[in-house]
């Protein structure tokens, strides 16, 4: 939920409760006031009626007063003396509307010109509570909506303005890449909390960038320090093997040492590659055309496959164009195709299927099923294969993770090894 909507949600809920409570209180207040006004009217009316009735024959009127809004009843003196003016709510049947209507009723007693005591009931015009509530509710609803609308406006203009520095720093953090950006000063803000936030973020990022660059430096130095002596060792041995007075046996032994050193150099190179991928040092991303890469790599490996009599079937349903680093894409596919060739059986087959969001590389092999959860771990290698570094699939995994791809292994019913790379 966005901050804007979140505050709006709570504000509107609170406001609704307040307005509702207020509506109830207001209703009773209003009702009291209305009753009071009506009662006052009735009292005035009473005086007016009594005044008008001075000259009339009240005994007679007692009979005909029904149908008017008052009625008279001759009463005894004792009774009359204990009658006080009382107002109450009552229901009166309205023959026009054919319903009972709620009205106010004033009961009073007076002594007429003729010395007789009379009780008089006066009713007011109807008091329609339903309508009152309805009117009240409607106007309050409008008020509520109006206030809500105002809050939305305020939220949109004021809150958006207030939170602008926050969204700016958020965007800045979202776009920030340790490996890519130099630090940018975030926009200045007058709000203390936000300028505090900016400073803290800035400090944190700076520390991270420093750690990152020193680590990067370390990796490069390690590569420099390790690769050069290895290269020198290998090359010196190569020169030594070219010396004139060596026997074949000597040359062969030198060859073995070179192979061992070469393995060390390859291992170093692979480890370096993995740490570079994991440190996201392959920055440049572009739209990579996987069909082109497959076509080229299969072509590159033709000599291998011909030598081992392995058949590659390449089946492109659709091209997959994916945003990633091109070198990494090449290394990923190269490693997988290479694995499919080198772990294949003589005269085996490789089946490659490419579609718009995944590809599958399936190969025959006389090796048994591999543990799907372990094969992407470092140095989890097949002991039978000489010269394998045990890092090939770790490189694949590191590339997939860094590029937002999923890679999985399965052993098919027909006894083939299958690697699937998908989004």
């Amino acid at each position, binding site marked *: 939920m966005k901050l804007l909507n979140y505050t709006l949600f709570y504000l509107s809920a609170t406001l609704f409760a307040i307005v509702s409570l207020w509506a109830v209180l207001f209703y009773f207040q209003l009702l009291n006031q209305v009753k009071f006004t009506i009662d006052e009217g009735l009292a005035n009316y009473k005086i007016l009626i009594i005044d008008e009735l001075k000259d009339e024959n009240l005994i007679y009127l007692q009979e005909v007063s029904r149908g008017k809004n008052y009625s008279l009843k001759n009463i005894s003196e004792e009774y009359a003396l204990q009658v006080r003016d009382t107002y109450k709510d009552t229901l009166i049947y309205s023959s026009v509307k054919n319903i009972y209507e709620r009205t106010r009723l004033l009961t009073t007693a007076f002594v007429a010109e003729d010395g007789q005591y009379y009780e008089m009931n006066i009713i007011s015009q109807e008091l329609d509570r339903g309508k009152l509530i309805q009117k009240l509710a409607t106007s309050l609803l409008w008020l509520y909506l109006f206030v809500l609308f105002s809050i939305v406006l305020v939220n949109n203009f004021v809150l958006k303005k207030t939170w602008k520095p926050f969204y700016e720093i958020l965007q800045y953090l979202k776009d920030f890449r340790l490996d890519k950006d130099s630090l940018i000063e975030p926009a200045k803000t007058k709000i203390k909390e936000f300028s505090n936030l900016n400073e803290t973020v800035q400090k944190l990022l700076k520390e991270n960038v420093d750690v990152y660059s020193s680590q990067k430096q370390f990796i*490069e130095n390690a*590569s*420099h320090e390790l*690769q*050069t*002596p*290895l*290269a*020198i060792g*290998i*090359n*010196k041995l*190569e*020169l030594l*093997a*070219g010396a004139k007075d060596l026997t*074949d046996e000597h*040359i*062969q032994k*030198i*060859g*073995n040492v*070179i*192979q061992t050193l*070469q393995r060390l*150099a*390859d291992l170093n*190179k*692979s480890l*370096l590659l993995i740490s570079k991928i994991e440190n996201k*040092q392959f920055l*440049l991303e572009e739209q990579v055309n996987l069909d082109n890469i497959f076509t080229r790599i299969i072509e*590159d490996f033709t*000599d*291998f496959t*011909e*030598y*081992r009599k392995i058949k590659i079937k390449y089946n492109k349903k659709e091209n997959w164009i994916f945003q990633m680093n091109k*070198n990494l894409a*090449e*290394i990923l596919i*190269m*490693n997988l195709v*290479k694995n499919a060739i*080198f772990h294949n059986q003589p005269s085996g087959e490789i089946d490659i299927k490419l579609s718009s969001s995944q590809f599958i590389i399936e190969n025959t092999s006389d090796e048994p099923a591999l543990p799907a959860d372990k094969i992407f771990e470092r140095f989890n290698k097949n002991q039978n*294969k*000489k*010269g*394998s*570094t045990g890092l*090939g699939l770790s490189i694949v995994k590191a590339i997939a993770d860094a590029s937002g791809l999923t890679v999985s292994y399965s052993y098919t019913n027909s006894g083939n090894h299958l690697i699937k790379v998908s989004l």
Partner: protein
Amino acid sequence: MKILIIEDEPEMLELVKQFLEDENYNVETADNFNSGMDKIVSYDYDCILLDIMLPGGNGLDLLKELKNLNKADSVIIISAKNSLDDKIKGLDLGADDYLTKPFHIAELNARIKSVIRRNKMDGRKLLELENLKIDIEERLVLVNNQTVELNRKELDILIFLMMNKNRITRKSAIAENIWGDYIDQANDFDFIYSQIKNLRKKLRVYGANVEISAIYGMGYKLTSK
């Protein structure tokens, strides 16, 4: 043929120097930025091997200076920094080639020969051994002035072996040179054997006076018969 090696690693420097002297080059060396600068400014070389990380400065600055002086020396950058950035920068600054450590010395040898050949104005240069001649520009192989039909990879292997004639060339160096960088993780270079076999057969048919001998556990060697 004068070559300058600017490299701070003494063993590496000594190794390359010894190798190039065996190849009959006139070799000079510099082991830091300043002595490198002195030699670049004072003399002309046919080829300069330039390390990027040097005590006292960045090799790329030497390259800039060289171009400022309008010198035509060929430059091959040699660096352990396997970073694309340096490679692009170096080539932009006018380096002729870029080689990443660790490299096969046979590869370095081939690269030096190609940049020197490319920068020579005096017509095309032929690689020659006995009655075998290779014209690299035209991609022609001649035995007794008769054209030998080779496919692309056979020709590339032959050129690479010719540039390193009379030396053992390792299978992995051949594979990297012909099939590209990534192939070095291929673990197993036996597939080269079939190419070599075809090559030997064709050379024999045309009566070339050279032979490609296999050195067990190492690679191949091209020599006169």
